[in-house]
């Protein structure tokens, strides 16, 4: 193994950090109209404070399903999900989800979108001035402060995603859930957004669970990459990416690391080479 790629088995991970999110034997079976789809086999996963975990796997393996269950949009068929020891029951801003599409509210201006979630947060209730200040701070973070008063439809796709990120960070979620970020954007904008996202993460020390089926994206963003098997999904391998941040998605080291991650899938696809480690 190339030491520069620095992918090491997950077992070597420091076990001292506090666990934010814990999934214990979580499964999901969809039943609709007599049809039974087993989406996820028992999943055990722990996410530590400040960690960026990427769920990586083939299409249909249940990555979005897992994220939806953490967010509280769906209930696990069995097993338990806890956040700081409290079981997850419904959607809430402590496990905020950032969607594939920006999902900004078109009836609100940029700044009002960012303040939206703060309305019900302790410390911000009935304090519009404080909400506005916080929102401006976040808009500065994503370099969009001069667009605060613009209607959403006047922004470009990349700008909208950045506003969505600011909106998601506003209520200071304990865990940020990201489902396939920025898929609809061109490579240049994406690369820029990745740098920006990492920069923000380093500064805010957010705990993040993100989903992707792009190995480069996984290598670029993740502290740890969880590789899933095809449906019904189960965890096939865990890889720790120890490249220094910020990482450039076009960096050869990232590409190399992405190769190692992608290999995990290939091995699974033709089912010839067994093995959990690289």
């Amino acid at each position, binding site marked *: 193994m190339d030491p520069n790629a620095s992918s090491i088995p997950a077992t070597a991970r420091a076990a001292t950090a506090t666990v934010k999110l814990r999934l214990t034997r979580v499964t999901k079976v969809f039943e609709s109209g007599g049809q039974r789809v087993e989406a996820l086999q028992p999943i055990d996963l722990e996410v530590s404070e400040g960690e960026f975990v990427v769920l990586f796997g083939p299409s249909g393996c249940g990555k979005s399903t897992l994220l939806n269950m953490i967010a509280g949009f769906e209930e696990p068929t069995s097993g338990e999900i806890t956040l700081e020891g409290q079981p997850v029951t419904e959607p809430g*801003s402590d496990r905020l989800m950032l*969607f594939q599409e920006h*999902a900004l*509210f078109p*009836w609100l201006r940029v700044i009002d979108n960012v303040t939206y979630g703060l309305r*019900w947060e302790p410390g911000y209730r009935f304090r519009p001035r404080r909400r506005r200040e916080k929102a401006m701070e976040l808009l500065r973070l994503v370099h969009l402060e001069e667009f605060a008063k613009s209607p959403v439809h006047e922004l470009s796709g990349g700008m909208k995603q950045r506003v969505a990120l600011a*909106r998601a960070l506003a209520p200071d979620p304990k865990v940020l859930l990201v489902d396939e970020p920025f898929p609809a954007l061109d490579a240049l904008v994406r690369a820029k957004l990745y740098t920006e996202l990492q920069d923000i993460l380093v500064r805010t020390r957010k705990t993040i669970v993100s989903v992707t089926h792009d190995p480069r994206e996984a290598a670029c963003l993740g502290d740890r990459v969880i590789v899933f098997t095809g449906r019904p999904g189960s965890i096939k391998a865990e890889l720790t990416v120890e490249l220094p941040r910020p990482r450039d998605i076009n960096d050869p080291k990232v590409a190399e690391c992405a190769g190692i991650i992608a290999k995990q899938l290939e091995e699974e696809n033709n089912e010839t080479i067994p093995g959990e480690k690289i």
Partner: protein
Amino acid sequence: MRPSPEKKYRGIVLVFYLALIALWQTLFSLQLIPDYLFPSPLQVARRLWELGSDGMLWPSMQATLLRMAVGFSIAAGIGLLTGLLMGMSRIVNRCLKSLFLGLQTLPTAAWAPISLLLFGLSERGIYFVIIMSSLAAVAIATSDGILQIPPLYLRAARTLGTPGYAMPLRVILPAALPGIVTGIKLGWTLGWHGAVSAELIKSSVGLGYLLYMGRELNDAAQVLGIMVLTILFGLLLDRFLFAQIEHRIRRRWGLLQAA
């Protein structure tokens, strides 16, 4: 600078209307129908002018508009509320939707006789006709608008911590606004029909009343004049008020391709 296509068409449309008036004038000049039954454009315009300077026109227009303002506000309020309930509860939707669809098949003028029986010749009777004419359109459009809300908005609202009690005002109604505006536009038109129909039967002022008077006096110029005026009024509000609002909202909600 290239003229916008909108501007180019404006000239053509103007020519079309001038041609229409010329056709009317030609038919008149052929004298196929006696002129007291079929007046010329000029006679109609003159009659409108007379009505105006006699102080008949303005109070009537005011009266009809005021009735619409009051009656339609009530209808829109009730329509929005029932539409919201229909949009949020499947049972309410099943029950009320068929009822409202049924009511919508009724011509608006058909509300006038029952209103006469219920309210006599009072102003309330006209409000009743306006409300019954427009209510269903607003309610149905609101509930349809709500059912067509992209689920993504609702999921985003929930993950951002929106409590249930805040959903209707903060998310559901604004997200359904494009549908609601379409319903308001249609409801206003139907209410306008209802108002003029009711005034025909039971009032002493208003555009409908002037139509009725024109018929009583065998004054074809007045009848045609008021008809033209009513059309112009409706068109003006539709094109320059509701259509503009609708367009803006649809653009803002990303429902139109950017030009």
